[in-house]
């Protein structure tokens, strides 16, 4: 499993990573009630021990797209001396998370079979 994560992480700048960004965001929000952008970048860094780095330039467009599609809802709170925008999953977002995670699992499984054909025959 560790090997698998490392593989995705090492591809941090590839199209593979780009395609997984939505799933990463949905998964993060699925595990906590609400999160803000900066928190997400730090959480991913922490989980992957710095192997995966979500760039700011990619994160916010992805969040705004999910918000426009109705998968995320927003909440704004005053924290310290500034406003903070939190994202949380909508009901539609919860359903999409389940389907996206399934999709990713299937993809990883297929790629594993492809990478280790001998292993899958056993």
């Amino acid at each position, binding site marked *: 499993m560790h090997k698998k994560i490392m593989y995705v992480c090492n591809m941090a700048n590839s199209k593979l990573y780009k395609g997984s960004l939505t799933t990463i965001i949905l998964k993060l929000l699925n595990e906590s009630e609400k999160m803000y952008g900066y928190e997400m970048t*730090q959480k991913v860094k922490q989980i992957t021990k710095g192997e995966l780095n979500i760039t700011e330039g990619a994160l*916010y*467009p992805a969040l*705004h797209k999910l918000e426009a599609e109705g998968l995320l809802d927003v909440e704004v709170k005053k924290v310290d001396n*500034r406003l903070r925008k939190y994202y949380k999953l909508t009901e539609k977002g919860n359903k999409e998370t389940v389907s996206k995670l399934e999709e990713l699992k299937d993809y990883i499984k297929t790629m594993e079979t492809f990478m280790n054909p001998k292993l899958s025959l056993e």
Partner: protein
Amino acid sequence: MKLTQPQIQNLYAFTRQHYVEHYDLQTELVDHLANDIESVWQTQTNLSFEDARDQAFKKFGVFGFMDVLERRQKNMNKRYIKYLWAELKQWFTFPKLITTIAVFLIIYMSLSSVLAKSLLIGFYALICVFVIYKSVLLKRQFKQRKAMSNKKWMLEEIIFKQAGGSAIILLSQLPQFYNFSDNIFSNPYIVLGLSIFSTLFFLWMYISFEIIPNKAEKLLNETYPEFCL
């Protein structure tokens, strides 16, 4: 170490300098930069605010906030179309459906008459006058709103400044209507098609220049939780 209020204001000015004019996006970027600066200060306590800010900004890449801004604009346009569409759908359910049918019948009967061409030109000329008048009015309203709050919201700008923008291109083709042959009005399918198109066009203009701007407060509150703060 936490950022002070003047430093937060400096970050707002910094986003404006980098072409982010809308308060909704500015707020999110300011919080992001502030978090990053505070995090950097935990390890580099002697780093100046300006250096820490520039370091945080560099993480957005060579295009700075441009990518985020462009995509935000695109997504906000999508949201506006969604509101427009939801409003349009209401005109095909009771009780508004009665008005839609009435408008359609008036247009259809006009285009079936001997004065079809003149009435068609008159209809679009009236819409044209309405569109120009409302555009000027909405732009003025937008300026007043901005002067009052000193804030500009992306959706607000779309509602008040870009309402029915693509329709203006279509209306600029109005002089072409003179070239229409009178014969086309003897074809019932063309008359039917033109009537359906004109009814939809009328509704689109009415919704984007009248209904949506009147509902602006509600839509802005719905889109931006910080709008009422």
